[in-house]
């Protein structure tokens, strides 16, 4: 088990530095995508956007029709993807477009201690 050093305990990670925030990495298979916008709606942070609309447009009903191909938004310095890997988008997608590569892991005092980086489906023990 990794415990915190004093430095880590008090160090606040820089939220837009990829060395200190490993954002989750989800991959869209754009060939299968029907552009229905369900992943955009389901995203807890509104982090999935397209060139034409964002989550606020879809939930308030301002935007209708084909949404365009989804991507994950980044912070203003373009270095960190805004994604925590809750995978609600993956559950919402009817076509199995989304897959996950990496889980969300902040560093220093926000480090996840008892969670391994690998992600698995619920297991029937």
């Amino acid at each position, binding site marked *: *088990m990794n415990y915190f050093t004093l430095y880590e305990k008090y160090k*606040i*990670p*820089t*939220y*837009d530095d990829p060395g200190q*925030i490993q954002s989750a990495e989800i991959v869209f298979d754009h060939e299968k995508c029907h552009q229905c916008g*369900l992943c955009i*709606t*389901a*995203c*807890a*942070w*509104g*982090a999935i*956007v397209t060139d034409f609309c*964002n*989550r*606020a447009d*879809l*939930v*308030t*009903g301002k935007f209708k029709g084909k949404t365009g191909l989804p991507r994950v*938004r980044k*912070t*203003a*310095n373009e270095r*960190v993807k*805004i994604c*925590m890997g*809750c*995978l*609600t988008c*993956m*559950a*919402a997608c*009817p076509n199995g477009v989304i897959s*996950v590569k990496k*889980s*969300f892991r*902040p560093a220093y*005092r*926000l480090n*996840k201690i*008892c*969670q*391994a*980086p*690998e*992600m*698995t*489906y*619920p*297991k*029937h*023990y």
Partner: protein
Amino acid sequence: MSANGEVSPLGVYREGMPWNPVEKVIMERRSVRRFKKEPLPDNLIRRILESARFAPSAGNGQPWKFIVVKSPEIIAEMERDAARITKFFMFFYGYTMYKGWRRLVSKIMANFSVMRLYSNEFCTPPFFAMTQAAEGQTVYYHGAPVVIIILEDKRGVSNPSVDVGIAGEHIVLAAHSLGVGACWMGFSRLLTYYPKWRRKFGLNKYPYRFGNSICLGYPAYKADKEVPKEVQLIEWYEGSMKDSSRFERQGE
């Protein structure tokens, strides 16, 4: 004992058996973030609240108060005010939204004040969600027809926050099992910064303080599926007092 002589009404455990209905509800429940406009029938809301009434609590203290908001007008105003206060905070502290000197000033302000003092409220997930809301990328209440606010009784036995969490999870699971979508909405805490909302719902009036809130409504899309989650490292003690524990990778 149920009619067939088994201890549980859903049968007994066999290794590798498929999920029973309760497990299925737990495993396949996902937060629903878009609801149909259609309001929920009052008796359905009462039925969902009934499972919260029978939630376990320390010392049977029941340290909670439930507030049902089903007025679209009030929910729209909650949404507006939550967005407004988010914009106010993130103007000063939302450094990931900015570049250059503004980011620098904002980062120093954030790191030396809110992130240190309110580390739970400004942890990464709420922080990113709030920057997104401040930029108009997302909305808080997902157009839900019903919001249930749970207040926590400070005088509660032991740790009342845990009891509030248990009652809330009963609501969420019962809702899912009845075909109603639910989503925890901790951002209602933002409303406690408005005297107007504090007065209206008694959010911080003794002995209560804000606990959490839950959006309910008929889901506008189907999101019930299992998803992968991180493997957990679980500590097992099996031998004698002298033996050390071992860590097992749960879920692999």
